[in-house]
């Protein structure tokens, strides 16, 4: 297509098997159907990935997408999206981070990587020049060493996406790390790169992003900014980043501990991870392009065993949750950030890595395994040195780490001895939210999320709200739409967890397709505002309903992808066994276990809200109604 603005207008295809690269125009029908970013990724991946093969087969493809608003001044428009068949789940694997605007400035909206190089390589993209280069000297380096090497060779202006030892060694929990800190973290996409012998992707571009109607665009942007910058808590977001949620999450019981056997007591969590002490190790902020919040931080630990540790962290709350509460390392910011730094260096997802460590500690403590299995490592909660050793062994596939590296589905099968019942996973991925603490859209949607145990997004339902607040949110944002309000905003907390998850999933799919961050301040903006900005930028007229319609198509494309890979919704859209068989210890309280029948009803209601069959499959006539049959063929 010849874009009026916003889009670069090109897709870059790289076949590592043949060494050929080619640039193709971005097809207009894809823009109309799926907008861009994660939306168009879903179709490109469906088309490029050869079905029913291992995620580590050369037939898997790794797709990146940068939405149309990325590279403009729209606040939060910095998100880039990746997609492949996931080594963690065997289904769709999608992850998002904020460091690939350079792809757009190089002249591409999407990058599709297929095949497998014979020997280690890295990919250099500099505007029209695309080169597959020898990467032998990089293989074996961690992500910091790889990034420094390429910055030194190519220039600091390059964005460098790299894998660490975990990706090289095909860990199910391997991530792709951009510029040493910003991660495509979940789903094991780092090992897809590793399976292709692709160590790194370095991108720099100096091309224009045009604006179809500049005056209209700036008027719409000023209107949006007035609303955006008047939000409460913006200053706190600026200072604490994702840690702004510490107190409300702690009070809701959302810090699972000891492999989800308990949730940390609120007062213990808040006392242990004192925010004033966090400010002592925070050395500054790092932001995605065009972000006024800058939730990422530069960390500098000045005292203790890890004195001198300096790095940047993407999500401090996730670091605290995983290397703090999950593993029982309470009260140690330095330990939390050492775990995070190791994961960034080695290229590993915080959540799945810490869930694997937690599972190992629990089965060790319960006597299922012993020190012979762990090659002499004595595992216990809060033993940071042993935990960090296990992280490294996982990355390098040494000792017991070699088994853990196969992920939350395969590792328990290998260990056997009843260890499977302690593995807490949904479609192979560890859920960040424990639904026994409270059923919200976040905790519920992990069961139905097509990419596995991950919330479709953090939304307004994460905390209990005051009476009437959900309706006011709906009036402000347009979600759920007016004709769905009565059936969706109902129940004791004034929302139906199953039904509302459809609308939040679609809302977040719009943001992912446009390239806007999912953080709460960006969700508070009415979709009409984003639609007006999109129309002014691209010259393609749309409105809020047009955006939501595209999101619905994206959701159905993703579902079709996973169905083609053998997803059984009835069997796999379910909570982990622990959530339905054991109560969650939260201080003196016991919450749950979840009522399986109730959860099944909620899942059924979610399917109904989507217009799907009661078993979660998609009706043929719905595929036709959405106009997706032309992409899905006979699938």
């Amino acid at each position, binding site marked *: 297509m010849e874009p009026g603005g916003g889009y670069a207008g090109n897709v870059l295809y790289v076949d590592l098997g043949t060494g050929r690269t080619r640039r193709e125009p971005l097809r207009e029908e894809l823009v109309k159907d799926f907008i861009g970013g994660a939306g168009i990724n879903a179709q490109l991946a469906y088309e490029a990935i050869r079905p029913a093969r291992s995620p580590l087969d050369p037939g898997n493809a790794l797709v990146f997408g940068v939405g149309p608003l990325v590279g403009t001044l729209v606040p939060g428009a910095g998100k880039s999206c990746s997609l492949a068949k996931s080594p963690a789940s065997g289904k769709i694997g999608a992850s998002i981070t904020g460091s690939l605007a350079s792809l757009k*400035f190089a002249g591409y909206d999407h990058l599709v990587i297929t095949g497998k190089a014979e020997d280690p390589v890295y990919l250099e993209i500099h505007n029209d020049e695309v080169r597959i280069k020898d990467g032998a000297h990089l293989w074996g380096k961690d992500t910091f060493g790889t990034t420094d090497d390429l910055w030194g060779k190519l220039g600091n202006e390059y964005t460098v996406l790299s894998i660490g030892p975990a990706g090289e060694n095909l860990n199910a929990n391997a991530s792709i790390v951009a510029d*040493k800190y910003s991660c495509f973290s979940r789903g094991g996409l780092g090992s897809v790169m590793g399976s292709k012998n692709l160590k790194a992707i370095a991108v720099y571009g*100096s091309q224009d992003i045009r604006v179809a109607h500049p005056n209209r665009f700036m008027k719409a942007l000023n209107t949006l900014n007035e609303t955006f910058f008047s939000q409460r808590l913006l200053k706190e977001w600026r200072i604490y980043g994702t840690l702004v949620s510490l107190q409300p999450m702690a009070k809701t019981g959302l810090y699972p501990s000891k492999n989800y056997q308990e949730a940390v007591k609120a007062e213990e969590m808040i006392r242990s991870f004192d925010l004033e002490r966090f400010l002592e190790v925070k050395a500054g902020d790092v932001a995605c392009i065009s*972000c006024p919040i800058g939730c990422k931080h*530069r960390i500098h630990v000045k005292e203790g065993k890890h004195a001198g540790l*300096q790095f940047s962290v993407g999500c401090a709350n996730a670091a605290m949750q995983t290397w703090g509460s999950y593993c029982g390392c309470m009260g140690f910011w330095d330990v939390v950030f050492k775990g995070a730094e190791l994961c960034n260096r080695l290229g590993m997802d915080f959540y799945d890595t810490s869930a694997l460590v937690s599972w190992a500690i629990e089965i060790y403590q319960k006597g299922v395994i012993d020190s012979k299995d762990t090659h002499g490592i004595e595992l216990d909660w809060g033993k940071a040195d042993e935990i960090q050793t296990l992280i490294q062994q996982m990355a390098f596939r040494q000792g017991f780490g070699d088994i853990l590296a196969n992920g939350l589905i395969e590792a328990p099968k290998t260990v056997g001895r009843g260890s499977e019942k302690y593995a807490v996973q949904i479609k192979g991925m560890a859920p960040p939210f424990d639904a026994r603490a409270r059923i919200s859209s976040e905790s519920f949607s992990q069961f139905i999320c097509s990419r596995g145990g991950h919330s479709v997004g953090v939304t307004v339902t994460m905390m209990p709200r005051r009476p009437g607040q959900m309706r006011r949110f709906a009036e402000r944002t347009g979600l759920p739409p007016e004709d769905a309000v009565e059936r969706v905003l109902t129940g004791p907390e004034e929302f139906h967890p199953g039904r509302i998850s459809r609308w939040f999933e679609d809302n977040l799919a719009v943001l992912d397709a446009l390239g806007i961050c999912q953080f709460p301040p960006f969700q508070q903006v009415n979709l009409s505002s984003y639609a007006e900005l999109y129309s002014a930028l691209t010259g393609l007229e749309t409105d809020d309903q047009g955006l939501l319609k595209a999101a619905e198509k994206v959701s159905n494309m993703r579902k079709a992808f996973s169905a083609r890979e053998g997803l059984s919704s009835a069997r796999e859209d379910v909570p982990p066994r622990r959530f339905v068989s054991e109560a969650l210890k939260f201080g003196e309280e016991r919450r749950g276990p979840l009522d399986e029948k109730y959860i099944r009803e909620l899942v059924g209601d979610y399917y109904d809200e989507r217009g799907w069959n009661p078993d979660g499959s998609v009706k043929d006539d719905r595929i036709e109604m959405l106009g997706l049959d032309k992409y899905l063929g006979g699938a």
Partner: protein
Amino acid sequence: MAIPMVIAQENCSGCLSCALACSFFNTPERVFNPARAYVRIERREGQNRFVVSYLDECLECGVCVERCNYGVLADGNSV
């Protein structure tokens, strides 16, 4: 007119809002392109810290100062 001044370089988050604004308001076609901005944000090697500098061609229009959310830039007229 404003005289852009770097008053707290250590606060720079690398968001490039200043460079995006500069390119949009100062190119005749009104495009976004940090490579065409008169303000430059360069990464210090080895870490995510940034150096802010201005090209001699800077028009002193001040849009970079208006868009900085991190207290890095200020209008020299009012400092």
